Each structure stands twice: as C-alpha cells, then as structure tokens.
C-alpha cells in the first residue's frame, strides 16, 4: 500500500509536475463540459477544424511574443466568419467549407512557424503540447479563464440548451439565437487555446469529444451529460498524467489513449447489457422481471418463469360478424374522462 502511495506522490514532489497535473485537470474538465454541447449538436468536425484553425493566430503570437490566447481566439473567430460567408452560397456545403477553411488556416500557421529558426521544436510544442513548460502565471490564467468559461455556460445554460436542441424554439422564445451560436463557438475557441499548451493542437479534439461521447452513452439528459463528462475529463487528466509519468510517454497521447479506452469499455458494457436484455432474438425480458425470476428460483417457489417476457400478448382483432372486417375503435374519445389543463 505504501508503495502505491509513494508511486502516486513521487511526481508531486516536483513543482512542474504539480502544475502539469493541475493544468491537465483544468483543461480536461473544461474541454469536456464545452465539448458536451459539440457532441450533442453533432459539431465534432467543426471542433476538429477549430482546433487546427487557431494555429496561425497562435503562431503569430508565438513569433511576435504576443498573447497566445488572443491570437488563437482571433484566428478561431476569423475561421468561423470565413465558414459562415462561404456557406451563404448554397452550392458550398457546411462540411466542405469547414474542410477548406481549416486546412488553409493550418497551412498558414505552419508557414508562419516555419519562418522561425527553431521551427521543428516550436511546431512540436504547438502540435503536441509541452506540459512541463507551464509556469504559475500560465496556471493562474488557465484557472481564471476556465472559471469564466464555466460561469458563462452556467449563466447561458438554459438558452444554449434550447437553441442547441431546437433553434426555432429559441427564436420563438425571443432568445438571441445568433449571439448564442457565436458565444458557443467563442467558448470552444477559448477552451482550445487554453488547452494548447497541455495537449497541443493535434490531440485537442479528443479532450473535447471523447468524455462527452462517453457520457452520452450512459445518459439521456444534457445536464447529466455535462456533469459526467466534466468529471470524466478531470479524472482523465489525472490518470493521463500518471500514465505519462510512469510510462514515459507524452501526456497528450496518454490522456487520449486512456479516454478512448474508457469510451471503448463503456461502449462494450452498454452493448453487452443490451444483448443480455434482448435475450434471444425478438424476445425482450425486462431487468425487474429477470430479478424476480431469479429470486423465485433461488427461494424454490415454483418454476422460474422462463419464456415470460414483458411483451404484451398479441392482440386479436375484433371481427364484426356482419361486415367481416376489422372494427374500427371509435369509443376511445367518448369513454376517456375529460381533463382540464391545470393552471
């Protein structure tokens, strides 16, 4: 037991490792929360594009010593605008516009970075992150910005939920639909830029999508999905950090592989559960009924109700003797008690 504690505490004796762990927890949780909206709305490709499209802004800020966050945000917003303009012509579909815009921006970013003498090292840092280079200032900025993003999501949660599910309802309820769409994209862009240093551009998408997709497998409610994804993302950051430390692999790849493994396990568990529920093809046995059967069998009461299912018995059509046709059900409205809308 002591050895386990030692193995867990050993990395934390280094300042850079403590900062790295905190950074991974922050960006893991934040990305998963923001990514939940992307998964729910089916914007995975847009997330992929945006994570690459911030590169020129980051590269300009990197080469000129400017603010990485502002640079990345500017590039992200510019890309969103380009996509919006391109899709005004109905002959250019949205995914095509996204593909063209993000590859162009990514190429521009590489071109800008290539002007620096330390091209290879800089590009590696931006593509795959450099968790060890995070200082206290970065961490404070990361925490402050994460707090701001989460606060905005909390404040606008209901409106984002409505607009994401049914934009027309948002319009009917007089919500600022275009502002909310733009807000979500800006929050995604901020999250991506904040996470760049920890995991890099190339692997960023996994932090946005995988925990949210895992949470989606086990819940049908957006609020639960966001909470679960946030916890998974946070935990993913911690587990990925230790895997990276122990296996001596980059933290970005450790987190992505571990999050994908969790997704795979949950997916397999869900598929197995569905298979068990289904029983033999065409017969569905509910969980309470299976438990009841098992309890009766264990207590020795009668025979287990094998073959009984929760499927109702087949209905026999009512045959009208004179007409020899199926009699239509016309009594439903008349026999059902009338209800009054409660005020």
């Amino acid at each position: 037991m002591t050895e386990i504690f030692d193995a867990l505490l050993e990395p934390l004796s280094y300042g850079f490792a403590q900062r790295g762990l905190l950074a991974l927890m922050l960006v893991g949780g934040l990305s998963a929360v923001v990514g939940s909206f992307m998964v729910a709305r089916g914007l995975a490709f847009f997330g992929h594009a945006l994570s690459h499209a911030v590169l020129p802004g980051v590269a300009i800020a990197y080469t000129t010593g400017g603010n990485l966050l502002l640079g990345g945000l500017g590039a992200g917003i510019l890309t969103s605008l380009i996509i919006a303009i391109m899709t005004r012509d109905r002959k250019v579909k949205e995914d095509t516009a996204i593909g063209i815009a993000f590859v162009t921006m990514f190429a521009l970013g590489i071109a800008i970075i290539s002007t620096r003498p330390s091209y290879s090292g800089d590009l590696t840092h931006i593509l795959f992150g450099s968790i060890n280079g995070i200082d206290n200032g970065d961490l404070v900025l990361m925490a402050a910005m994460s707090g701001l993003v989460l606060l905005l999501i909390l404040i606008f949660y209901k409106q984002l939920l409505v607009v994401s599910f049914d934009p027309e309802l948002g319009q009917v309820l007089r919500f600022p639909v275009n502002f909310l769409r733009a807000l979500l994209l800006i929050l995604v862009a901020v999250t991506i830029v904040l996470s760049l240093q920890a995991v890099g551009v190339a692997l960023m998408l996994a932090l946005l999508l995988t925990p949210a997709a895992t949470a989606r497998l086990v819940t049908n409610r957006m609020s639960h999905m966001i909470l679960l994804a946030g916890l998974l993302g946070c935990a993913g950051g911690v587990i990925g950090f230790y895997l990276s430390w122990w296996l001596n692999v980059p933290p970005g790849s450790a987190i992505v592989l571990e999050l994908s493994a969790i997704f795979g396990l949950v997916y397999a568990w869900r598929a197995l559960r569905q298979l068990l529920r289904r029983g033999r093809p065409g017969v569905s046995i509910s969980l309470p009924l299976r438990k009841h059967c098992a309890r009766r069998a264990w207590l020795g009461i009668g025979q287990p109700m094998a073959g009984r299912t929760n499927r109702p018995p087949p209905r026999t059509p009512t045959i009208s003797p004179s007409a020899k046709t199926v009699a239509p059900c016309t009594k439903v409205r008349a026999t059902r008690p009338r209800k009054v809308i409660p005020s």
Partner: protein
Amino acid sequence: MTIKDQTSQVPALVVRDLGAGYPRAPRTIDQLNFVMQPGDCVALVGPNGAGKSTLLQAIAGLIPIDTGEVLVYGIDCRDKDVHVGHIPQRSAIDLNFPVTAHDVVVMGHARSNRWLPWWPRKDRERAHELLELFQLSDIADRAFGELSAGQQQRILIARALAQEADILLLDEPFNGVDVTAAAEITEALQLLREQGITMLMATHDMARAARDFDRLLLVCGTLLADGPPEAVLRPDLLLQAYGDSVGGLPLKDGMLHVTSISEPVGLQDD
C-alpha cells in the same frame, strides 16, 4: 399573464397584406389576408411550396416580414410580449439530442427564468401535469428521440402549452406518422380544441382537414379561399391551387373526395 388575458376582445390573429419569404429567395406568400377569433381552429391547406410553412414561420417571427403586418391579440407578432407556440415538423428537430420527454416540455418555460441554470420546481411540476394531461407520464424520463412519432408530436404540443402561448401553430403534425400516431395526435388536438385554444394547423391531408376543422384556408402563394370545407374544397379552387394534377368530386354527404392523378393528397376514410 399573457397578452391574451389582457386583450380578450380583439381578434386572436390578424394577417393583413402579408408578404414574406426566406432570406435571399423569392417571396413565397404575398397579399395574404385573414382574421382568426379567440378559440378558432383553422386548417391551412395547399400544395407543396404554396407557402403554408412560410406563413406559420412569419406569424411565429422566425422569418422576416417583407410587407403587411401580423397582429396577435392586437400586438405585432415580432414583439417580445407575444407568446406564439410553433410546433415544427419533426424533421426540423435533432432526435439524437440528449433530452427526455420531460426536458422537452419544461423547455417551454425557458423564457420566464432564462438566467437560472436549473428548472424551478414550479416549472417541473407544471411540465409533469402537462405530460399527464396528454397521457405521457409513463415516458417522462425516456429519451425524446426513442419515442414514437405520435408521442413526440404530443410532447411538442405539451411544450407549446407550457409556453402559455397565445396562439398555436402546427406545421404538418401528421407528416410521416402511422395510423396509431395520427389517432393520438388527433386526440391531442381535440383536447386543445376543448380547452378553447386558438390553433392554426398546416396540413396536406385535405380529408382530415375537412373532417376535423370547421374552417379551412386554401393558400397558393396568396389566399385562394377561406371558409367551411364545403366552400373551400371546390373543384375550381382546387384546380387553381393544384393545377391539372388534382380533381375534386362532391360526395353525397357534402364532403369532397380529393384524388390526385400523380399522387394521393388525401383520403376520405369516413
């Protein structure tokens, strides 16, 4: 309190010289005029591309109005105080979105407390009451996308009621539903009618419109006819709306059996 409570003497809906269409596209409807009184239930019929959905979206404030005006209880339909319940075609909604039936209904309350990240108990209880009203309580916690078409439509109707809408606009609620689902939706609409809710429903099914509604609007870019089914579903008017592809034949009971040469547009099933 909605504007309906304050101004019960004025018409529920006034559409005057309305011209509207989708942005960057030719105008779909033009010079459209009609009036609905509180409690009126009206069916909107017409061929594809006639502007039925456009009209509903213009009333709901979803698309800009080019000419004319739409007044809901005397107030411009784009005003923030106007509560319009728009029930879109199911195809317009993402069925894979992670929401339960209860979540969808409670969304109707989002306007009153939009800045709260949670739903107040009052709103949740009201949503449960509405689900019970439409006999959907047992599926309240099930994913919206997994439900039958009829259940989904009834949930969307319940959501519109949660909005405390002054007027309900239904866009092809019977599209792509089977007989059972159609019966469920009909029953839900009957319930709305009994409650005196003002309702305008776009439909392709002229037989159903003639059977279930006392007043029909036949549109084809503009309003061709407005009145009881016998007066609207006349062969000359239908020919004007649908062209040569439709013929109308009067039946013994005064109803019209509408048949199409190219495809069926409605069936007389009474």
